[in-house]
């Protein structure tokens, strides 16, 4: 019995020894499964395609996170009378208090933007090295490279409008241990790089869409030109902006939607859309308003069971801008705009995932970044600045005609103001108004809270955002935005 037992034990031990010796090798993979940092990835067209999809999804996250597209682009413009009791953070932001109570890291930190840029830089770095035969559709290679350059230009332009100078990082960090800290690059240099990127984007992209499903939600040559027109107008190069926007209008294949189909433009993928972020319940990508999604401009009856409106319209702003009673935009964009709970219903395509119980609302409107009407008016602005009022009026009146507003005949600075206000009317709550006011140096006219801190739109002004002090601890090269130094 005892001997038997010993034999068993020895046998068991031997078995364990053998198994463990062999097993280790197989359980512990020497190469990570999903690493994008080794030669294991970026070997074929499939990898390149999923990498660019990943970049778009990062962009979506960045623009939706903290509601930032509208918080940066709309809240401080004075369009809304944000309720301090229901959304204190954005109430402070709308008053220009970018360091106010409850305003914080989420608004100041740009790290998620650099995660997106890392992905884009990787694509730019790696995809050209993939042999063309490895792509199922050989047009994809150029297109993906072009889209990556577009995304990099867009991201840096977007960041530079928020913070001014931002660190310009053009190479991916392939080894995290060798990642270097870069100081903030002057805004002019960042924007010049954006234009360089766009040249490459334009060379790699074409107009139009072969797959209608990708309309506007994937960048094409038209999106790149629209971005170029915006960047050049922002830097004051109106001659360049005029040329780029002309190209979009003439060759992009876009068309203004009819007055009756107006609201469809805001659902997305319309012929008017130039660049959009895909948000579609039909594709299971709707925003769940109970699951962290935010729809502060809506309440009942547009979102059943939602009693509170956090961002009611600013009635006096509305009455200042929309003076024309025939303007169909007033009826299409707003609900009870004259009340203290006026809703902005541009983006109110809500579907209920639980059907008639209506407890689970999902918002299904694309985030509109560029659309044709925006480019029409941007070109009109450029033409007006270049003294070509005759051509500017034609574009302006095309937009007014659709909105059923009488034609405008005038010129000079009066025309300039009309074009700006037409933009404010047309692009209300589309993340543009604040930057339109900054670009045309009229911010303090429309939101008097910025009277002292706007400083005529110079880089010293408080229209730029402070950066998160939390980022300084890992990066000693960073400095605070000039206006906010000593104010945080």
């Amino acid at each position, binding site marked *: 019995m005892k001997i038997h037992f010993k034999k068993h034990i020895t046998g068991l031990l031997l078995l364990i020894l053998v198994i463990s010796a062999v097993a280790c090798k197989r359980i512990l993979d020497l190469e990570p499964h999903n690493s994008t940092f080794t030669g294991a990835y970026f070997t074929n067209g499939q990898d390149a395609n999923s990498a660019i999809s990943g970049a778009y999804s990062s962009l979506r996250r960045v623009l939706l996170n903290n509601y930032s597209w509208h918080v940066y682009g709309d809240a401080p413009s004075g369009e809304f009378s944000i309720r301090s009791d229901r959304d204190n953070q954005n109430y402070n932001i709308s008053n220009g208090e970018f360091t106010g109570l409850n305003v914080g890291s989420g608004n100041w930190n740009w790290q998620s933007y650099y995660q997106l840029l890392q992905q884009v830089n990787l694509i730019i770095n790696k995809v050209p090295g993939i042999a063309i035969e490895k792509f199922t559709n050989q047009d994809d290679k150029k297109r993906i490279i072009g889209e990556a350059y577009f995304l990099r230009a867009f991201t840096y332009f977007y960041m530079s409008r928020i913070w001014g100078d931002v660190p310009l990082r053009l190479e991916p960090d392939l080894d995290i241990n060798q990642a270097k800290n870069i100081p903030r690059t002057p805004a002019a240099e960042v924007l010049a790089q954006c234009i360089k990127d766009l040249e490459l984007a334009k060379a790699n992209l074409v107009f139009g869409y072969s797959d209608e499903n990708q309309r506007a939600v994937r960048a094409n040559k038209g999106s790149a030109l629209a971005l170029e027109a915006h960047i050049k107008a922002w830097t004051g190069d109106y001659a360049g902006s005029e040329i780029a926007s002309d190209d979009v209008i003439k060759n992009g294949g876009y068309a203004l939607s009819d007055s009756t189909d107006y609201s469809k433009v805001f659902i997305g993928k319309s012929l008017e859309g130039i660049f959009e972020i895909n948000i579609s319940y039909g594709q299971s990508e709707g925003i769940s308003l*109970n699951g962290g999604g935010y729809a502060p401009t809506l309440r*009942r*009856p547009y979102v059943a*069971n*939602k*009693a*509170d409106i956090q961002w009611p319209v600013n*009635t006096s702003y509305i009455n200042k801008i929309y003076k024309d009673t025939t303007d169909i935009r007033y009826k299409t964009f707003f*609900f*009870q705009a*004259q*009340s*203290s*709970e006026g809703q902005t219903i541009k983006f109110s395509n809500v579907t209920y995932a639980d059907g008639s*119980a209506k*407890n*689970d609302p999902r918002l299904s409107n694309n985030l509109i970044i560029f659309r044709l009407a925006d480019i029409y008016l941007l070109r009109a602005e450029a033409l007006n600045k270049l003294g070509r009022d005759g051509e500017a009026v034609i574009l302006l009146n095309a937009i007014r005609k659709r909105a059923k507003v009488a034609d405008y005949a005038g010129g000079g600075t009066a025309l300039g103001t009309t074009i700006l206000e037409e933009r404010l009317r047309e692009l209300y709550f589309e993340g543009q108004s604040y930057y339109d006011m900054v670009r045309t140096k009229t911010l303090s006219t429309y939101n008097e809270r910025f009277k002292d801190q706007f400083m005529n739109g110079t880089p010293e002004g408080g229209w730029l955002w402070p950066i998160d002090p939390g980022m300084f601890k890992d990066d000693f090269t960073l400095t605070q935005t000039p206006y906010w130094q000593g104010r945080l």
Partner: protein
Amino acid sequence: MKKLIMICIAIVTVVTIYSCKKDYVIGGSLYNPKVDMTTYDYLKTKKLFDTLIIMVDRMGLKDEVNASGTVFALTNYAISNYVKEKQAHLRIKLNDENLVFTFDSLKLPELKDSLRAYLFKDRLPVEALSEVGKLRKSNDGEFRLIQAIPTTDYTDPNIFPVKPKYVYLTKIVKKEDGTGTIPTDSTQLPLVDPEQLLQARVQTSGIITNTGVIHVVNNNHTFTFFGDIKN
């Protein structure tokens, strides 16, 4: 042996039942909507309504308040909002940007009917109200839509199947372009465009006094719905 087990079970049962009796709530009290006062006296005990009480006194509405089954009580804020809106309105109308208008400038007797629009003969506790709501005649003869609408603003409907309800006092007006009918009884409600509804939410509902029910209209409301410019 069997007996012993039975006794044990009995003891355990008794202990289990009685051990639960002690309440673990420290502080606070059970919700009791009833106050042992008349509506007027109750409003008088709360500072939030002292402006309302001044108005009621000067308009001689004390008895009518106590005779009303339901009172939508206005807080000081709601009346202050009215005074502010009125000042802004008069400044534009009379083209005098320095015009000063205060509570003392109000001609209270003229506003008597406006205040009576917040008083209702019927007793309307929250349980008597529905989501669709009914048109009710207020003491000044105007109709108001009174509803109790469920909300999910603060609860997850997947966890709490019973949703909390907000009470709304709604004035129905014409649309901005002047069209739309103002209904005079509840059967006409389906014809009303949502744009015609000016809602005032109740912040504290169903206070039951000896003479009726009080619903407190939220602080952001403006007395007479004056804040809604096209009204």
